[in-house]
Each structure stands twice: as C-alpha cells, then as structure tokens.
C-alpha cells in the first residue's frame, strides 16, 4: 500500500537542503506521500532508497501527457499538455479525482470536405467560461477509414490540425499512421493504433515520434496481454482504447480496467482510457450525450463523440466540473458585482458568499424573480453562508471591506443591501460599518427570494 509521509521521511537525507523546492525534507515527504511530487525529485536520495520508494510510492495509475493545449483550463493552469489518468481512487469522495475527462469530436476520411469543414467549425464554436474554467472541445479524433490512402489521411490530419485542437489518430494502417505522424508529431497527438496484431510496429512508430500510443483489444484479456507485451518491449507511454463492441462490453471494460489498476494495484492496467461513444451510438446525438455522461462518471479519460453540440456540451462540462472538484474544497465564484435582470446603478443590492453552489441557487432565484438587482459576491473562503459566518469569513468586517475595495459606493447608487437571513446577526454591525446603507435582512432560504423581492418591489 501507499507509504505515509513519515515512512518516506525516514529514507530522506534529512538535510533540509531545499534543492527539491520544498523548505524541509518533511514537507517534501508529505508531498510525495500525496502523489504531488515523485521521489526522484530529491537529488540526495540514495539509490537504494529511490529504488525502494519508487516501487512503493509509484502511483497505481500513470499520468500520461499528450497533445498541446489550445487554451489554459483556467487562470491557475500552466500545464502545456493534457494530463490524463493519474487517479488514485475509484470514487471522488475517497479523495479526489485529479485529471478531468477530455472530450473529442471526430472527422473521418469517409466524410466529404464540406462535412469536415462543418465539423471543424462546430468544434471551434464550443468555447465558453464556466465558473472560471474554459470549456472547449480539447481533442479532434481523425478516423482513417479502411482503404484510405496515406496521403488522403495525412491531408485530413493536417486539416484537422488547423482547428488548433489536440489530435487523436484513429488508424490501423501503418503507412497511414506514419504519414499522419509526419505532419503532426510535434503536436504530440495520440496514435490510437495498436492492437494484438500490429502493436510492435505501431509501438515503434509512436516511440520514434515520441507520442502516446493507444492500444485496444478484442477483449479485456487480449488488451491486457497486448499492454503487457508493449510494457515488456519498453513502451509505457500508453492509453487504453476500451473498444466499441457494445455499450455493455465497453462499460464493463472501463470499470474492470480501472478497478484492476486502483483496487488490485495491477499496474498493467494503470493507464488512462479512451472511449469512442460516437462509434457506440453512431448518428444518435442524445444517446451519445447519455454515453458521454456515463463514461465521464465511470472512468473515461477521453470521450470521443461524432460531433459536440452546445446541447450536449453544456450539461457535460457542468457534470465534469462537479465530478472533478476536490470534495473538501468547495468550488468558488470570483468576487465581484453580478448584475441580474438588467440591473443598473439604481438597482437594489444583495450579498451572499462566494461558494459556487450558493451563488447558483441565489442567482437562479433572482433571475426567476425578474427583479433587477446587483448580486455582490465577496471573498468568503468558498464556504456556505453559515459555515463562512462561523469561520469569520463572512462578517460585517469582510462585507464592509469588500464594499470599499470594490468601490461599490462609486459604482452603485442604490443604498439598500439585502443580507442572507441566516446571518441576520450581522445587521447591526453592518449598519455601523456602512453608514448611509439600509441593511435589510432577507429570507433564510434562496427559494424564498422570489416572493421576498416581489413583495419588496410591491411595497416600495
């Protein structure tokens, strides 16, 4: 099993040399235990210790990097490539899921030019921000139909590359694969090409080009054998294509592979996965939406669709955002002024915390009320109203400070501020700290806001 920080610390040189970037050996050990750093980042570790620790502290599932990111995921993201896999748990509540599912749309040599153009245009169209994360189709899968000429495939790959997204090369023919890599290997595509019959050749192509190799098998057992053979040959830069035999089999493969890796620490299956739901439900956009949700929940590292529409993307990216949050860290909203229903400087103000769920509930109800209002969100530590209040992060002081720092008084003329009913206790203090403001205690639950605001408007 995984080593504790203390066990790792015992093997460090205990010099606090800081060369690894951590201030102390203890801090370094704790990070290694968490999987945030690897043991070889310590320059002074003895070889024996590294060997002992690498084996024990190696994560059960590798983090595989592929593609070049078109955009940073969010303002904290500095990774240039997509990190796939690297999970340590089967359920998010056990710790947290670390590398989110990525989505792909497909083009194929069997499509005519106009269709390809249209598909690539649809890929570019999906690009929006949701609670600070940039949402877009990260990959384009380029299918090589049987019998397609290498030049034709390479041309399509080149065209697909023009869309500026990372590439997945779905190809079985060696010549086609080679031709495609020649035009795009510096973009770190995934060569999704290996199976039991061709893995040696494809592995060589992938290794020579320095790209990740996708492996598939007719059955989960065959997939396992092929991966084992590839690993034996020295290629551990892999991703597992879970196949398209049937929805049932693909789902079984997704679970069996991940479970073997994480629960039974069978490292042969310790790789990320690709699921092609476009092939599982060709032509049925709603079924593809259903499958994309299913494989986001259960263990698809990349989910490939035929096309990604906004209808499919909006819930899918929302789902992913929820699934891949740290269960102990609540998602947060940027502090600021959020005008609702066309509010202006004369509209009433409401304030609540920056906990994303609270924000969504409150803003949803405010929208429903139809009353123009300004929602003021201050930094409350990303906690719910009562929790942040209890922690002193949503206090009369914090609200007053926010009003000052965001220069609310010069931006908004209205001087009525509605505070959540659960923190009615702040009213008096706020009145003292915000002279000239009329502090109104609002309802205790968001669902009561519509009536509250309408009544308030009626009585005004």
């Amino acid at each position, binding site marked *: 099993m995984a080593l504790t920080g203390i066990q790792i610390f015992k093997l460090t040189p205990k010099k606090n040399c800081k060369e690894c970037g951590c201030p102390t050996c203890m801090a370094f050990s704790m990070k290694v235990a968490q999987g945030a750093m690897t043991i070889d980042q310590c320059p002074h570790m003895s070889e024996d210790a590294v060997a002992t620790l690498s084996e024990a502290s190696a994560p059960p599932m590798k983090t595989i990097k592929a593609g070049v990111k078109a955009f940073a995921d969010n303002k904290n993201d500095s990774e240039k490539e997509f990190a796939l896999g690297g999970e340590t748990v089967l359920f998010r509540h056990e710790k947290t899921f670390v590398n989110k599912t990525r989505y792909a749309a497909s083009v194929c040599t069997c499509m005519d030019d106009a269709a390809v153009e249209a598909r690539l245009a649809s890929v570019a169209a999906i690009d929006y921000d949701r609670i600070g994360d940039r949402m877009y189709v990260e990959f384009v899968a380029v299918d090589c139909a049987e019998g397609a000429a290498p030049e034709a495939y390479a041309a399509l790959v080149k065209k697909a590359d023009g869309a500026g997204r990372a590439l997945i090369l779905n190809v079985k023919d060696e010549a086609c694969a080679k031709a495609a890599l020649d035009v795009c290997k510096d973009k770190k595509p995934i060569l999704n090409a290996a199976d039991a019959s061709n893995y040696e050749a494809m592995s060589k192509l992938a290794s020579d080009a320095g790209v990740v190799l996708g492996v598939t098998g007719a059955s989960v057992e065959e997939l396992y054998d092929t991966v084992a053979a590839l690993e034996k040959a020295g290629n551990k830069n892999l991703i597992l294509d879970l196949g398209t035999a049937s*929805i049932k089999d693909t789902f079984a493969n997704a*679970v069996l592979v991940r479970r073997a890796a994480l629960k039974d620490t069978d490292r042969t299956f310790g790789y990320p996965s690709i699921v092609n739901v476009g092939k599982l439900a060709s032509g049925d956009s709603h079924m593809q939406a259903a*499958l994309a949700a299913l494989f986001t929940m259960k263990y698809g590292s990349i989910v490939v669709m035929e096309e990604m529409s*906004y209808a499919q993307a909006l819930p899918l990216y929302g*789902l992913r955002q929820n699934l891949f949050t740290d269960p102990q860290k609540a998602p947060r909203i940027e502090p600021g002024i959020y005008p609702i229903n066309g509010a202006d400087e004369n509209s009433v103000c409401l304030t609540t915390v920056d906990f994303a769920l609270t924000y969504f509930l409150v803003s949803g109800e405010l929208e429903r009320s139809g009353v123009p209002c300004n929602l003021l969100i201050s930094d409350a530590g990303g906690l719910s109203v009562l929790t942040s209040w209890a922690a002193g992060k949503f206090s009369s002081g914090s609200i007053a400070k926010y009003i000052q720092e965001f220069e609310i008084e010069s931006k908004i003329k209205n001087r009525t501020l509605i505070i959540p009913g659960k923190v009615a206790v702040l009213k008096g203090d706020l009145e003292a700290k915000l002279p000239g403001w009329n502090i109104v205690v609002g309802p205790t639950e968001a669902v009561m806001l519509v009536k509250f605001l309408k009544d308030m408007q009626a009585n005004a």
Partner: protein
Amino acid sequence: MPFTKKLQKFNATVRSVEVGTGDKAVTLGGGNTLPFYSFDAPTTNTAKIGIEISDMGLAHEPDCIKEVYAGCETVADMAKKAITMEGVDFLCLRLEGGDPNGENRPVEELVAVAKEVAEAVDFPLVVEGCKNVEKDAELLSKVAEALQGKNVLLMSAKEENYKNIGAAAGLAYNQLVGAESAVDINLAKQLNVLLKQLGVDSGKVVMNVGSSAAGYGFDYLISTLDRVKAAALGQNDDSLLMPIITPVASETWSVKESVATEEDAPGWGCVVERAIDMEVETAVACLACGSDAVILKHPTSVATVSKLISALS
C-alpha cells in the same frame, strides 16, 4: 500472467419495492451490484423511469412539452398519453400547483386531480407534492387516503413532515413512502431510522437522497449516491438498503441551459435539444451513481435513457 477478472460480490441486496398493483406493477431496487456492473453479477432488476406530468396541466410547460401533449384537455388526458411513451415504467404526478408561494391550489382540488389521474390510468403511480413541507403534510396525507388500494408512492416525507406523511401513507392507508433528505448520507439514514421508529415498514420506503442538475452542485449528489450505495451493499446497512428514486426533470427543466431562448443565448442552438440533453445526461449520471429510478419529462429523454438501461443490463 493473463488478466483475471476479479468480481465484486456483495452479501446485501437493495430491498425490492413494488409500486402499483396487478400486471402493471413495477419493482424498484432489488440490485446487488453497483449500478450497471452486470459483469459482477447478473442484473436482477433494471433501473426504472417515470414520466412526469403536473396538476397544472400544460400551463407552465415549455412549448416542446405542449406539443407532446397536444390535444389533451385534462390532466387525466395527459396521463393517458404519457404512459404510452416508449420506455415509461411509471407515471409521476407532481402537484406543484399546491405551493403556497405559487398557485396555492386548495388540497381538495389537488386530491381530485390525483383521483382523476389514478382512475384514468391503470399504471404505477408516484405522486409528488408541492415541496412546501406544511402543505405537503396535509396534501400527501389526503392523497394517500383518496388513492387507497392503488399502492402509490408518495413523495416526499422530509424531516419536518415525515410523521404526517409517514403515518398517513405508511400506516393508515397502506401506500409507499418516499423519504427525502438533503444530499447527505447521514440525513438519509436518520430519516429512514425515524420512519422505522414511527412504525413504517422499511420495505415500503423509497429514498430520495436529493437531486440537482448536472453542473449545479451535482458533486454532492454524486458522492451521496456513491456513499449510500457503498454503505448499503458493502456494510449491509439496513437503514440504507431502500431503493433510491431521483426526480430529475424538476431540477433540469428550470436551469439556464434548458430555459434560455435562442435569442437570449445565441450560439447555444435549439432550446429543446438543450433541455433534452440536460435531462438525459443528468439522469444517466444519477443512474451511474446509484439511483434505482429517475423521473423525467420529455419522451425523447425517456426513450434514450430507457435504451441505455437495456443496453447495459
């Protein structure tokens, strides 16, 4: 060494709860694997889908739903049409008109609607209240009385009103009790224990452990469902072995993604498609974590999710 599948066997089985009577009755629960893990053990009972109609008829429904029920003049007409949709296992009547902050329809009127629907269709029926705890306490008790003998599932008894609804549905009138808690395994457990202490047979309880739309705090729901299933099957925790029903439509049809018009959100495309995919994806995510039944609204969503359930079992 070749790969050998290690199967995950549980000693516990989620309780089976039958809704409705006669040939059309439908069974919720009864599973002994994690959702869709048919490779661990053969599927004993598949997840079920309900279709939702409202006492308000089509008054508050979007155009696409109005089209589905075109020609229906009464709620009973809608009920008759709803149960013919492909993939529907049960009917869910939502008495949302009872909300004191909304239409505030009187209890007698709503009970009459429920009776009309129950008489119009011979089909398993779930009746949902208006979500106001005081009103529901009275409303669902009266519905339980009015629909005696139909073996109806009443949703939902919450911590604040479980005594009323539990006593009426579970004790006095021999119906089924939906136990609703707010996305927390311990609250779910506590409510089940309280219902048991009240005297309600645990075999007549179906849980709603909370609901939300994908992207809207859905993380809490995922973990609650995951944990409830894990504790129920893994620990054989008797107070969590009830089947789980999740109302999906009532959450997904009000979020921005499903509501914003094409003018409001240029570039987002057809609003009907958006609403359907929001409903489908949320439902599938719930099922994948442990819901034994979901309640949907659009026939395309019902058909899609139903097809997926069949494909996976």
